[in-house]
C-alpha cells in the first residue's frame, strides 16, 4: 500500500462529484453519470485490491497521516488513514454497494431533471463515507460522520418541492445532530485524557484510564470511560437510528430509492456500528456502557420490527426492517461480539440494498406507486425483480445457507452466551425478533408479488398521474435489474464463505479488541465445524422454527385468509393504533418538544429581550432621561420672581448652615 493509492480511493469519487456537480449542465447527463461511475468503479477496484493485500497477502495495517490539519496547544490534528482488516472490509462493502447503486441510478433517475445533481451527491457521499471508515483519528471520523449526514440531508430533500421531503430532511439532520452532540462530547472526553485525537493514542491509554473516575458534579463521579463510551454511543444512536433517535429513518424514505439502498440501508446507517466496533478498545473497559448498548439495541431490534407489520408503504416496511436489523447489530456490539456485528453489517448491506433496489424496481414498474395495498401478483410481470426480491427476503429472515442466516444465527447464539447485565432481555428480544422479521418480510412479498392483482383499480385512480405510461406493470430495464442480480449473488453466498474466516479465523486481526472474559465469539468457535455443519445445526435451532412460523403466519394472514388479518386488526385496535402511531415518538417530538423549544425561545425573546432588557433598561433609561429633563425644565420658568424666590431660599439655607456650624 502506498499513500497515493489510499488517497486515490476517496479522492476519485470526490473529484467526480465536483465535476458532475459544478459542470453537470455543461457536460450533460451521460458524461456526468459516466465520470462518477468510472470514479467509483476504480475506487471499488482499488478497494478490492487493498483488501486482497491485507486479507490474502497479509500486509500489515497502514496507519499514517496525509497532512496536518492544524496544531493547537501541542496537539497535532492530522488527516490520515488507518487501513486494517476492519477498514478494508468496510471499504469493499461501501464501494461495491455504491457502484451498484450508481449503475442502478441510470435507470431509476432517467427521467429526473436533477440527474447530474443526483450523481454528484451519491459520489460525494461515497467520498464522505470512505473518509469516515478510513480515518485514523477522531477529527476526520467526525468529518466523515457529519459529511455523510449532510449528503443524506441533501438527498432526502432531493425533490425539494415536496413538503414531506423537506420536512424529512430537516428532521433527519436535526435528530442526527442530537446524536452528534453526544458524539462530540465523547471526542472531547477522549482528548481530556489523552491530549490527542489519534485512535492509537486513545487505545493505548484506555487500560490506564479504566479505573479513573470523572467528576460529573461536585458530589458524584462516574467512570471516565463509561461517560466517554456512552457519549460516543449517543452519536451512534443518531447515525444508526437507535431508539429514541430512530425517528428520522422512516421519514428519510422521502428520498429517491437508490439512496435508500445506499445510504439508509447499506452504508451510512451502519457508520455507528462500525464506529463502536472500531472503538472496541475503549468500550471493552466499560461494562456499563456495553449494557446500555445492549439494551438500546435489543429494544430497537424487536419494537421497530413490529412497526414493519402494520405499514403499507413498501419502502417504509423495509426501512423499519433496517431499523430492526441495525438493532440486531447493536445488540451484538453490546454483547462484545463486534466481529459478528460487522459480519451482519456486511451481509445486511448486500441483502438490504438488494431489497431496496428491488422495491425501487417495483416502484418504477408500478409507475411510482408505493402502497402495497395497490399491488399484488407482480411476480408474473416482473420476474427478475420478484426472484431477486425473494432471495433478499430469504436472506433477511435467516434461511439456512443464505448469508443472513450465518450472521443472524451467530449473532443470536453470541448474545445467548453473554452474561452481561441486560443480556437475557436482549436474547429474548432478538429471538422474538426473528418471528417478527419473517412476518413482515413475507407480508411484503405476498402483498407485492403474489395474490390478487389490485393495481388495475389503483391505476385508474392515477390515470391523471404524469408518470402513467399505460396499463400493466412492466419489468425494469437492465441497468436496474443488473445491480439486483449483482447484489443477489453475495446475498446468497457471502455468509457461507466468510463466516469461518471472519468470526473464527481471526480475520479481523488486531483491529477489534475483546477482553478474554467477554469473548462470546470464541465460545461459539469451539462448536463451529464449518459452514455446512453450522447450517445443518441451524435447522434444528429455535430461530429457524420461529422464522418458519413467521412465514406461515404471513402466508395464512395475507394470502390465504386476508379477511382474518383485518379482523385481527379490529380486534386489537388499541395495539394497532399504538403501532400505527409509531409508539407516539413523532407525536411527542412534534407536539411537545419542538413547540416547547419555540415557546421558550419566544418567552426569552419577547419577555427577556424585548420587555426586560430593551423595555425596562434600554428604552427605560432613555425615557428616564427624558422625564428628568422635562421635570428639570420646569425650574427654568423665565419669571424673575421664581428665581428671586429660590435665591432667597438658597441664601437662607446657606446662612442657616453657617450659623449652625459656628
Amino acid at each position, binding site marked *: 500500500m502506498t499513500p497515493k493509492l489510499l488517497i486515490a480511493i476517496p479522492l476519485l469519487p470526490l473529484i467526480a462529484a465536483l465535476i458532475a456537480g459544478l459542470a453537470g449542465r455543461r457536460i450533460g447527463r451521460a458524461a456526468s453519470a459516466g465520470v462518477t461511475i468510472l470514479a467509483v468503479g476504480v475506487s471499488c477496484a482499488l478497494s478490492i485490491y487493498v483488501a486482497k493485500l491485507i486479507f490474502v497477502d497479509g500486509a500489515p495495517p497502514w496507519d499514517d497521516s496525509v*497532512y*496536518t*490539519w*492544524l*496544531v*493547537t*496547544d*501541542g*496537539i497535532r490534528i492530522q488527516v490520515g488513514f488507518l487501513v486494517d482488516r476492519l477498514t478494508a472490509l468496510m471499504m469493499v462493502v461501501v464501494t461495491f454497494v455504491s457502484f451498484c447503486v450508481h449503475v442502478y441510478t441510470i435507470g431509476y433517475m432517467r427521467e429526473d431533471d436533477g440527474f447530474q445533481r443526483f450523481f454528484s451527491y451519491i459520489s460525494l457521499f461515497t467520498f464522505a463515507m470512505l473518509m469516515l471508515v478510513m480515518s485514523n483519528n477522531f*477529527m476526520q471520523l*467526525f*468529518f466523515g460522520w*457529519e*459529511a455523510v449526514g*449532510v449528503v443524506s*440531508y*441533501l438527498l432526502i*430533500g432531493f425533490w*425539494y*418541492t415536496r*413538503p414531506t421531503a*423537506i*420536512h424529512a430532511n*430537516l428532521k433527519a*439532520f*436535526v435528530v442526527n*445532530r*442530537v446524536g*452528534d*452532540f453526544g458524539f*462530540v*462530547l465523547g*471526542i*472531547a*472526553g477522549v*482528548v*481530556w485524557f489523552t*491530549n490527542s485525537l489519534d485512535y492509537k493514542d486513545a487505545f493505548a491509554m484506555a487500560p490506564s484510564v479504566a479505573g479513573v473516575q*470523572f*467528576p*460529573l458534579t461536585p458530589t458524584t463521579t462516574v467512570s471516565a470511560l463509561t*461517560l466517554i463510551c456512552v457519549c460516543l454511543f449517543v452519536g451512534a444512536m443518531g447515525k444508526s437510528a437507535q431508539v429514541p433517535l430512530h425517528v428520522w429513518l422512516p421519514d428519510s424514505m422521502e428520498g429517491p430509492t437508490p439512496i435508500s439502498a445506499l445510504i439508509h440501508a447499506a452504508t451510512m446507517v451502519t457508520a455507528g456500528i462500525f464506529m463502536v466496533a472500531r472503538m472496541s478498545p475503549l468500550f471493552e473497559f466499560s461494562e456499563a456502557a456495553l449494557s446500555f448498548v445492549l439494551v438500546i439495541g435489543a429494544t430497537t431490534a424487536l419494537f421497530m420490527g413490529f412497526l414493519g407489520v402494520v405499514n403499507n408503504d413498501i419502502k417504509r416496511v423495509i426501512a423499519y426492517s433496517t431499523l430492526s436489523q441495525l438493532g440486531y447489530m447493536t445488540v451484538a456490539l453490546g454483547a462484545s461480539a463486534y466481529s459478528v456485528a460487522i459480519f451482519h453489517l456486511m451481509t445486511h448491506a448486500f441483502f438490504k440494498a438488494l431489497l431496496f433496489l428491488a422495491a425501487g424496481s417495483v416502484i418504477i414498474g408500478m409507475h411510482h406507486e408505493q402502497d402495497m395495498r395497490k399491488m399484488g401478483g407482480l411476480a408474473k410481470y416482473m420476474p427478475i425483480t420478484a426472484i431477486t426480491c425473494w432471495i433478499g427476503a430469504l436472506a433477511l429472515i435467516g434461511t439456512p445457507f443464505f448469508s443472513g442466516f450465518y450472521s443472524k444465527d451467530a449473532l443470536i447464539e453470541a448474545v445467548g452466551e453473554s452474561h452481561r447485565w441486560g443480556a437475557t432481555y436482549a436474547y429474548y428480544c432478538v429471538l422474538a425478533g426473528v418471528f417478527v422479521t419473517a412476518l413482515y418480510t413475507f407480508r411484503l412479498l405476498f402483498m407485492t408479488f403474489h395474490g390478487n392483482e389490485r393495481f388495475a383499480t389503483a391505476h385508474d385512480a392515477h390515470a391523471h398521474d404524469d408518470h402513467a405510461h399505460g396499463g400493466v406493470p412492466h419489468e425494469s430495464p437492465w441497468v436496474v435489474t443488473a445491480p439486483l442480480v449483482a447484489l443477489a449473488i453475495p446475498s446468497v453466498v457471502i455468509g457461507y464463505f466468510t463466516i469461518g474466516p471472519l468470526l473464527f479465523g481471526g480475520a479481523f486481526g488486531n483491529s477489534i479488541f475483546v477482553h478474554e472474559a467477554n469473548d462470546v465469539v470464541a465460545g461459539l468457535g469451539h462448536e463451529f465445524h464449518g459452514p455446512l455443519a453450522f447450517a445443518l445445526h441451524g435447522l434444528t435451532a429455535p430461530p429457524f422454527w420461529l422464522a418458519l412460523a413467521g412465514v406461515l403466519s404471513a402466508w395464512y394472514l395475507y394470502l390465504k385468509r386476508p379477511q382474518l388479518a383485518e379482523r385481527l386488526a379490529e380486534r386489537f385496535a388499541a395495539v394497532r393504533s399504538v403501532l400505527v402511531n409509531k409508539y407516539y415518538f413523532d407525536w411527542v417530538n412534534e407536539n411537545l418538544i419542538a413547540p416547547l*423549544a*419555540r415557546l*421558550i*425561545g*419566544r418567552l*426569552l*425573546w419577547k419577555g*427577556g*429581550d424585548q420587555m426586560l*432588557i*430593551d423595555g425596562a*433598561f*434600554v428604552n427605560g433609561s*432613555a425615557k428616564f432621561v427624558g422625564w428628568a429633563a422635562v421635570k428639570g425644565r420646569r425650574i427654568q420658568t423665565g419669571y424673575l420672581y421664581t428665581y428671586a424666590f429660590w435665591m432667597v431660599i438658597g441664601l437662607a439655607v446657606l446662612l442657616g448652615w453657617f450659623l449652625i456650624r459656628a
Partner: protein
Amino acid sequence: MQGLGILSALVWLPIAGGVAVLALGDRRIAAARWLALIAAIATVALTIPLWIGFDRGTAEFQFVERLPWITAFNSWYHLGVDGISLPLIVLTAVMTVPVIIASWKVIETRPAQYYAAFLIMAGLMIGVFAAIDGLLFYFFWEAMLIPMFLIIGVWGGPRRVYATFKFFLYTFLGSVLMLVALIYLYVQGGDYSLRALHELPLTLVEQRWIFLAFLAAFAVKVPMWPVHTWLPDAHVEAPTGGSVILAAIMLKMGGYGFLRFSLPITPDASRELDWLMIALSLIAVVYISLVALVQTDMKKLIAYSSIAHMGFVTLGAFIAWDIADSTGALRGAAMGLDGAMVQMVSHGLVSGAMFLCVGVMYDRVHSREISAYGGVINTMPKFAGFMVFFSLANAGVPGTSGFVGEFLVIIASFKANFWYAFLVATILILGAAYTLWLVKRVIYGPVANEHVAQMPDLNRQELLVLGSLAVLVLLLGVWPAPLLDVMHSSIHHLVEQMTTSKLPL
C-alpha cells in the same frame, strides 16, 4: 523610532481612497466605483507581504512603527502586529472587497459617499487592530463609529434613526468607561504603550475596576448577553454592506479587546470574574440560540445567530483557570484561545456571507421576512447552492470554517468542566435547527408567490462575491493549519501573561 511602513499604508490607503472617492462624487460615479474597488483590492494586496513577512516564531509585535503623536500625554502613533491582530487585519481587508462589489448596482442614493464610508471605516478598523498605543487604539475605536453611524443612518431602513441612536449610545457608553480605565492606567504607569500596560503591576481592587470598565466596552461590542439588544436592531436597519461589516469585523473588536486588554492587563481580576464571563457566554449560546429559533426576520435570525456564535469566543478566552483547577495543568488553555480566534475569523466570513445572501434576496423582493419567501431554489438554483452551503457552515459542519473554532472550544471546555461543554455543544442541535429551518422555509419548497417566481438568479458580481467567500470558508475548514501557525506564539505568550499574577506575593 521606526518610521512609516506597511501598517500605516494599510490604515491610510483605504482612507485616502475613501477621500478620493468622495472627491470624485456621484457625478463621476463609474470612476468612483472603480476607484473604490481598486483601493479595497490594493488593501488586500498589502496584507500579502504582511502575512508572508510575519515571523511566526515570536510573540513580539512586528512591523512596528512609532512616531510622536500627543507628546504631552506620552502617547505615540505606535502600530504593530502580532499573531492575534494579524488574522483580524487580513479579515478586515478581505471583507471590505465583497461589500464594495455587492453594492455595485444596488446603492442608488449617494453611492460615492457610501463607498467612501466603507473605505474610511476599513482603514479605521485596521487601525484598531494595528494600534499598540492605548490612546491611539481608543482614537480608532471611537472614530470607527462615525462611518458606521452614517451608514445605518443614511442608507438604513425605516427605523434607522432608532437603530443608529441605540447603536451609538450603547457602544459609546461602554467605550467611555474604557477611556476612563485607560487614563487611570496612564496615570499609574505614565505610558500608553501596550507592552507597558501589560507589565504594569496593579492591585486586585484596581484590576477589578479596570476589568469591569473594559468589560463595559467589549461586552457591548461582542455583544454579550444582556447588552446585545442593539445588534438585532442595527442589523435589521443597516444596508447589506453595513450588516456585513458589523457582523464580520465590528463584533470581533470586542473579542479582540478581551484578548489584548482585559486578559493581559488584569489577569487576576479576569481569573476572579471568569465565572461571570463563562456564565454570560453559556447564556449567549443557549438563550440566544433559542431566541434565534423563533425569529421571523431573516436578518434578525442571523444577528441572533451571531451573538450565539460569539459566545464561543468569550468562552474560549476565559476557561483557562477552570482548566487549571480541574486538570491541574494548563494544557487546553491555548486550545480555547485558538478556538476563540478561529471562531472570530470564521464567523467573519460566514456571517458576512449570510448577510450577503439575505441582501441578494432583499434586492429582488424587498422583504426580510421569512414568510415572504419559499421555494427560492426553483428560480435561483445557483444562489440556493450558496445559501445552503453557508448555512451548513453557520451550523458548524466539518469541512467548513464554522466547525474548527467550535470544535476546539468544545474540546477545551470539556477540560474545564463537563457541563460547560454540554451546554455549549447544544449549538450543534440548536444551530442546525434555526439555520436549516430558515433554509427550509426560504429556499426549499414550491415557489411561494409571484415575487419569488420572478427572482432572477445571481448576476456576475454576486456570483464572484459568494464564490470567493465560499472558497475561503472551505479552505479554512479543510486546512486551518496556516492560520493556527500564525497565532501560535502570540497565543502561548498570552496564556503566560494571563496566568501570571500581577499581585505582590
